[in-house]
């Protein structure tokens, strides 16, 4: 390991060994004195092999960007560790940490805001070199030109300002700057979002070429699943700050294991309009991760959630119960109005609310009396302004493994893992339940 080249060759090449290892990582955003603490990354484990591209998919707000930022040292983990080349990042300090900064880089999602619009392109690309005192100034100028060549920008652009560049060109400048110090690892946060199709293909091919040329390791974050499928060797599916499923990209796309992966993949529009009928609907809205779930983070919205054996109910009834639980969850999240608070203190329910809820939940179904009693009790809690109690009550009455235990890692294929209770032998697999077993 030679440090003399400014970190250029400090990370020895060689595919197949672990470059980045994340164990039980927690990143929280403090909500200040009044707001709740957001658990953006919540107990996440991840391994990135040297030279590979790991795709990361998941809905907005699930913590993908936060994970990227944590990997390049922009977020301080609340607990857990990020290891780079075997050394915990938190243990690096001073000059060692600065050297490590040159080994990792990030291409930011917002190319506009990540380039200082008061500096010309050449200065922007050169800045990491200056910050690390890379060789001599003449070499730095040479390097900037090489980088601009590498990302397909004419060297004449060196003196243009970012405001005069197109979105694709700005993205290329961001890539050039990220590669300036020849990092071993680059976090690509939505590198092609907002670009039109031809530019997108250009940037993606560029990224692939650069990886071949420099032996880079990528973490590729994208909304667009086709981008990940095109570029990633392995893919991880993220939900509420944690990884639900991971595996080789082709296998994962061809035969999803986790119910959430099923949902995500079903949302890809097919070539024919009719195929959209395969889409699995997702209930509720993505939860703001302010509290740690006691069970599976996806339990509340899972279309394949395990039903407890205690009640033998038909699907229609379960749907209504799920709806009631969703209402309770929503009410927990939003701050209660003054009237609701007063009603809660006085211990009186608002009759109209209770009647509305009953109508919404019980209309058209006829549950057994025991179940009906439980539902009535939960509605009373809700109407009296005690949503937290209603939630606890409903969980006790209708919850299952999904609500109580965090699912273990289940090996679901070669180098594949999925966190779902349905992979246990006693349950039907998610694919069977959703009617979409591997085709």
């Amino acid at each position: 390991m030679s440090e003399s080249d400014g970190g250029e060759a400090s990370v020895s090449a060689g595919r197949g060994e672990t470059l980045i290892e994340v164990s039980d990582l927690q990143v929280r955003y403090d909500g200040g004195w009044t707001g709740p603490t957001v658990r953006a990354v919540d107990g996440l484990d991840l391994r990135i092999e040297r030279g590979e591209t790991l795709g990361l998919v998941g809905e907005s707000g699930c913590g993908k960007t936060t994970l990227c930022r944590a990997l390049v040292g922009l977020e301080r983990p609340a607990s857990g560790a990020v290891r780079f080349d075997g050394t915990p990042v938190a243990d690096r300090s001073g000059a060692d940490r600065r050297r490590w900064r040159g080994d990792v880089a990030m291409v930011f999602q917002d190319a506009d805001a990540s380039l200082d619009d008061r500096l010309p392109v050449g200065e922007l690309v050169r800045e990491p070199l200056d910050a690390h005192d890379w060789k001599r100034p003449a070499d730095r100028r040479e390097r900037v030109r090489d980088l601009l060549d590498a990302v397909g920008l004419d060297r004449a652009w060196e003196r243009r300002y970012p405001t005069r560049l197109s979105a694709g060109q700005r993205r290329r400048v961001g890539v050039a700057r990220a590669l300036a110090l020849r990092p071993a690892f680059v976090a690509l946060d939505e590198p092609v979002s907002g670009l039109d199709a031809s530019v997108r293909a250009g940037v993606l091919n560029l990224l692939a070429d650069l990886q071949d040329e420099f032996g880079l390791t990528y973490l590729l974050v994208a909304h667009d699943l086709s981008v990940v499928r095109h570029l990633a060797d392995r893919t991880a599916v993220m939900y509420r700050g944690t990884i639900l499923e991971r595996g080789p990209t082709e296998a994962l796309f061809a035969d999803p294991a986790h119910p959430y992966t099923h949902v995500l993949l079903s949302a890809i529009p097919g070539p024919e309009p009719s195929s959209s009928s395969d889409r699995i609907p997702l209930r509720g809205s993505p939860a703001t991760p302010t509290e740690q779930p006691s069970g599976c983070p996806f339990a509340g919205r899972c279309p394949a959630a395990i039903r407890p054996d205690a009640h033998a109910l038909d699907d229609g009834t379960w749907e209504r119960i799920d709806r009631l639980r969703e209402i309770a969850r929503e009410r927990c999240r939003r701050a209660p109005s003054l009237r609701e608070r007063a009603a809660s203190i006085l211990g009186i329910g608002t009759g109209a609310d209770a009647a509305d809820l009953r109508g919404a939940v019980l209309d058209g179904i006829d549950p057994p009396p025991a179940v009906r009693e439980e539902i009535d009790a939960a509605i009373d809690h809700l109407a009296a302004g005690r949503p937290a109690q209603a939630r606890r009550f409903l969980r006790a009455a209708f919850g299952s493994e999904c609500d109580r235990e965090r699912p273990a890692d289940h090996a679901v294929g070669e180098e594949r893992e999925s966190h779902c209770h349905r992979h246990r032998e006693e349950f039907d697999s998610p694919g069977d339940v959703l009617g979409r077993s591997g085709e």
Partner: protein
Amino acid sequence: MTGAHDPDPDLDPNPDTSLTARVRRDPGPAARWGAVMAVLVAVEAGALAAALLSVVASVVAALAWLVGGATGAGVPVEGVLAALDGARAAAEAVPTLLSRETIPNQGHRTAAGGPWTGTFLGLEPAHAWALRAALIYAYAFLIGYWLFRGYLVFRRHYRAAEWTPRDDRLDRFRDHGWGRFGLVVVVLFLATAAFAPALAPTTPERNLVAPCQHQVTYYDEAAGSVASTPVCTANLESASNGAGGPNVGPLSYDDYGRFHPFGTLPTPGKDLFTFLAAGARVSLFVGLLAMGIAGTLAVAFALVSAYYRGPVDLAAVVAGDSVMTLPSLLVLILVAATFEGHPLAEVYSGALVVALALGVTRWPFLWRAIRGPSLGVAGRTWIDAARSFGQHPATTMRRHMLPAIAGYLLVYGSMMLGGVLVATAALSFLNLGVQPPTPEWGRAISLGEPYVATQSWHVATIPGVLITLVVTGFNALGDGVRDALDPHTAAESGVAVAATGGDGG
């Protein structure tokens, strides 16, 4: 706006050439500009060298005083100072175009109603003075314009980048009438301060500081001959003392054939224009030093607190708010009274203490004004980007945050400068702060205040109007710069309406 063509044939294919190499390739425009600039400098070379040497001498003396104070032992700099003084005298002996020696306005008649002698081409003193003053202001504007022209030449012929964000801001300012008005007033003020000794009808030394050691030659009508008397005696005879007393109003001569563009002050009857011109220097010194201190503190607090936030920000807020709660004028009065007799209060007749006190008490206001933009720029992703590749925090603040707030600093700094001038004048009005014989505008107002309703109305009114004008000028300049930086606010105030109105077709 030039289009962003790609590829651009105008663009230098080899971006590595230095400025000197670019100038060497096409020396024409630079040579033409440089020739004119050289002429402009040459006609005032003596005065420029003298000014430079006197600044150097002041710095040497101040450093010697500081070092001597710290070590308790005197530092032998007398030799150096004497050498500097000699060099300055030599530089002053070099004739300059805009000096009172070249265009003298002090002379006397040789007989009653007879021709003038000693003045430029035998002109009346008023005309000679007016000519010199007009030339000086013209020269000041010419120098200013030529420097700007130099930037345009650089931009057009030698700048590597074809366009920078600054270009648009500059163009916006050039279209801003109110801002241009402010710029004119500020240039007039700066020229008055810079050329004070040459601009006034007489020198501060002769008229204000040591009038009894200088003689004035005049035609004595009673005796019917040319006579000579000390300036202090002549001043006493030509004071403006309000109703019933003697009065020399604006644009008039006194009995000694001296022209007073703004009239004279009350007993001992100094020349008001000379007083105000010299006072402009003091005001400028106090204003720039105070704003320099306030600006440095404000920028340091703004950058550090915006970059680190959290407890650092809270500490800065508490510190700033504590200073802001102090009643400013009372603190100034306290400081002025406390430092009475202190060696520091002797520097520039107390102007230094006033400037320090104003700088230390005013920074939180400036800091508050630039805090928002600092927090805004600190939240941009490019700060995170700099952090991600390991840029030093200090470099990040200097390269990525300071340029974004520099404009706001200029805007609020120029507006606050007006407040500093008013505060300095207010202290002088209360006979605190800058002490005689060093002139200060506020003292002129204070001296003339009893006579506002009399024939000597000019004593307080003219400096009052001038302060208002200068403060308005600095505010207008600040307005113009702000609208140039941030076209959105300009659009709200209707300035941009004319610019966008033509786009309808």
